[in-house]
């Protein structure tokens, strides 16, 4: 029924009158931002290179924790002025660790202080948030086995009845096999909780050199499954995967009989959103050359997806400017509405793996703006974010508390980059309206991972699944953004992880709201 209803609403959101998306103007504020992080390393850091964006200082602006590869990771505390220039201060946190590939924020222990899952080429580390941007190692206290692999991907969910999360950690090649790495994928691990500790990890067999993971309720069953994106360069007999992770049951991969079709790509990142407004998540999978944009192929009783990247102009196959005609290499991807027109845009971080001459060496990041007909329009160069450095992870997030989506990108063997969204388009016109929403529920899963936010604008409904994971080695937690187009108000509701839906509630545009379970939206 959801599908029938939402098909009626397809692309019906009351947004801009014209069909051409506004191209937001970004300013490169890397040099003045105070951020000087560099993801360094050679073969065993050719993948990874993430950033965790979350508030650890209590001012509700995202601070940034950067993976450093062979150099220690660094926490940068956000002291940007509201609506002003981006500015960060490197701050000792106790989480300075070497050989870090990526990091994801999560409130593991439900104390309302975000913790960090730090992925490494080596032992992964749980860092308990102590408040005021201080962290302490918690592997032993929490029973977390960090292993000794090459980890670059992570996802979390709260299984029904659990007070602590279930974590999936994706592991890449056996890094001891540098001389002959092919076919030497290592197992991904599922860390399930036992009360307030983690049990010994379960190996997800088979595993195929994973570079991105995402718990997602693809069929709105109420129980998320685990999507796994794998690098075909190194596996034998592998494919993209999706796993049943049902409470109390061993994890089990989806089968052909359930509709899951083998797909072999150089899977590097997963982004999700309901881009076609059918009520179900859609997935953008980054790869080399052609990327994939998957939507449900039929009814949600079969786990069959079809690729619509080509007709929707989201294939992002090669550089869209410059003199390098070779195919691209895509890593972190993220859907966000960067121009507030009510449509989900798509940012993709690009960069050569390492001296692969058949792929673009000057490979610009993409900023694909969704148009009224559901297709995407490339605007990275015009927007000012088409850097050709060797990008890996990143985040599209409001860094200076003005409701506009800024961008941070981690580059390999080069400095990270930060762009501030000016709040205007390239003609100088002010961008449309927005909402920033934060979810809170009592008890476990305080940030409501697995919930759905719905924003109603006239006849149209925007839907966002709240997830922890995906992208490329990069996670964020805090405010969730929604563009409102020209609307000055909207209605919102949350469908909480247990399926309970709040009532629709009115909200005003251009505001930050806390959405507490069972309560009316509260201005920050």
């Amino acid at each position: 029924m959801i599908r029938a209803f939402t098909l009626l609403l397809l692309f019906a959101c009351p947004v801009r009158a014209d069909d051409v998306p506004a191209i937001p103007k970004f300013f490169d504020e890397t040099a003045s931002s105070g951020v000087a992080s560099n993801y360094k390393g050679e073969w065993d850091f050719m993948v990874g290179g993430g950033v965790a964006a979350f508030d650890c200082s209590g001012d509700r602006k995202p601070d940034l924790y950067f993976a450093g590869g062979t150099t220690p990771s660094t926490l940068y505390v956000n002291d940007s002025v509201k609506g002003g220039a981006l500015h960060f201060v490197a701050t000792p946190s106790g989480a300075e660790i070497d050989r870090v590939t990526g990091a994801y924020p999560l409130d593991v222990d439900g104390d309302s202080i975000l913790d960090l899952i730090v992925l490494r080429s080596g032992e992964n580390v749980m860092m308990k948030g102590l408040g005021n941007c201080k962290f302490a190692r918690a592997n032993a206290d929490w029973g977390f086995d960090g292993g000794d692999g090459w980890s670059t991907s992570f996802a979390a969910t709260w299984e029904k009845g659990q007070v602590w999360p279930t974590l999936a950690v994706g592991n890449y090649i056996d890094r001891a096999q540098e001389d002959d790495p092919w076919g030497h994928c290592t197992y991904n691990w599922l860390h399930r909780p036992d009360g307030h500790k983690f049990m010994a990890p379960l190996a997800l067999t088979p595993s195929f050199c994973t570079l991105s993971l995402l718990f997602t309720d693809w069929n709105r069953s109420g129980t998320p499954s685990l999507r796994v994106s794998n690098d075909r360069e190194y596996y034998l007999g592998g494919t993209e995967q999706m796993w049943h992770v049902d409470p109390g049951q061993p994890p089990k991969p989806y089968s052909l009989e359930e509709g899951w079709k083998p797909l072999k790509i150089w899977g590097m990142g997963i982004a999700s959103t309901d881009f076609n407004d059918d009520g179900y998540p859609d997935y953008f999978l980054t790869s080399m050359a052609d990327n994939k944009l998957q939507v449900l192929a039929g009814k949600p009783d079969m786990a069959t997806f079809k690729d619509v990247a080509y007709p929707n102009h989201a294939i992002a196959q090669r550089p869209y400017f410059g003199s390098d005609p070779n195919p691209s290499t895509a890593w972190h991807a993220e859907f966000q509405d960067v121009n507030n027109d009510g449509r989900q845009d798509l940012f993709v971080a690009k960069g050569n793996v390492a001296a692969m001459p058949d792929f673009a060496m000057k490979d610009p990041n993409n900023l694909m703006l969704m148009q009224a007909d559901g297709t995407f329009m490339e605007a990275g160069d015009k927007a000012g974010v088409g850097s050709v450095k060797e990008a890996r992870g990143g985040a599209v997030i409001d860094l200076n508390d003005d409701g506009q989506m800024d961008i941070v990108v981690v580059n390999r063997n080069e400095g990270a980059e930060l762009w501030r969204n000016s709040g205007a388009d390239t003609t100088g016109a002010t961008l449309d309206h927005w909402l920033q929403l934060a979810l809170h529920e009592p008890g476990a899963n305080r940030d409501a991972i697995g919930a759905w936010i719905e924003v109603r604008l006239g006849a149209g409904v925007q839907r966002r699944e709240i997830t922890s994971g995906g992208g490329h080695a990069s996670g964020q937690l805090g405010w969730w953004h929604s563009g409102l187009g020209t609307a000055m108000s909207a209605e919102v509701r949350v469908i909480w992880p247990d399926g309970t839906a709040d009532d629709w509630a009115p909200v005003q545009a251009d505001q930050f709201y806390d959405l507490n379970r069972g309560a009316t939206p509260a201005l920050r």
Partner: protein
Amino acid sequence: MTDISAGHSRIPPKGRSSMIGIVLAMALTACPAMANTRADLATQALQSWYRLMVELVRHTPTYSPPVASRAFAYLGIGAYQALETGDPDHMTSLVGQIKTLTAPPAREPGAVYDDAVILQAELAMSAHFLFSNTGPSGQGAMAARERKLAALVAEGLPQDVVDRSVTFGQAVAAHILDWSKDDGGAVVDNMGFPREYQLNPAPGHWKPTSTVVQQQFPLLPNWGTNRTFAMPAGSTCDLPPPPAYSTDPTSEFMKQAQEVYDVSKTETEEQHAIARFWADDAMLSMTPPGHWMAILDQINTRDQVPLLQQVDSSLRLGVALGDAFIGCWYVKYEYDYIRPITVIRAAIDPNWQTVVNTPPFPEYASGHSVQSAAAAAVLTQVFGENFAFTDGAPTPDGLPPRKFHDFWQAANEAGMSRLYGGIHFRYAIEQGLEQGKCIAAYANKLVTLK
């Protein structure tokens, strides 16, 4: 009949075994007392590099089947010529037999060389050159392989012999590689897909079969004009035209399309397994030429084939595969024939799916059939009729090994796998096998070991 899976020793045809053993002892060493050890080391270097090359074919983006076949041809010629320079009494130079090949540098008279070191250096330099565009893992693997093998073959030898042999092996490689640069296949841009191309809009001609951006134009349209190795030209083994395009259901054209469709609907488990076993998809596997090189490697390993016969058979197989893809590609772009999936979806079933991914180039003739027949013809001459073997080459699907009573059974099965896979009409398979036989005859005429 000898089945390598049973672990029997191979009996080479024509009484060549004992002669090879003698040649080996004479040719491979500067120190007769170390003959067996030096031969073993040279064999190890040869097999080790070939295995890595077969692996790198999968992991190097430009290595579509034609490109892979070219690399194996040059690897074989280089290795053979490197050893021939030290033993002209027992090996015949390829100069005058391989098109435009000139003599490599000569060894310094009276100086001591080591053939294992020469072979290792020649192969290492060739590998680095031919796979210079592979990714960081491939580069690392080649560097590691070279370090290990170079140390292995040099152990116990006087340093001046090692240095002289390395320099000579690299000089032979440089000579071969320099010669390779103007054959028409040296530069593979955009993974082999033309940046601009005019598709023939007439019915019956090739149309793109995927939404992959590069594959909107067909792969390597000029490959058929490349310089050949043993056969005179790409057009030497030309084929008759395939059935004329027609929409008449009673036409030969539509009958062959209907057969592909019907087979897909009644496909047995065995037929499906055959389709998958020989799929050999580019960028997901060792490709068809890599598959046959792997078959040869399995036989060499199981039967402990002497070094020079390995060098000889690798040369012949590489040359045959290289010529096979040039000849096949000549035909493909001569006729620019439509793929079954295009016909079937337009006229029979719009939702029809193939078992094997349809390759992005014209249908006629079947490349796997051409090169498998060429390989079978060459390997039959080398190893003899009724030579049974088990092919346990790894497949992307992890399929079990398959047993064959001779090379022709394997080649015919590889050809039919394309019908079972839904990517070729029967006529393209049958004619492809014929073209492969024709092309292999030239590789089989090469005069090598005396």
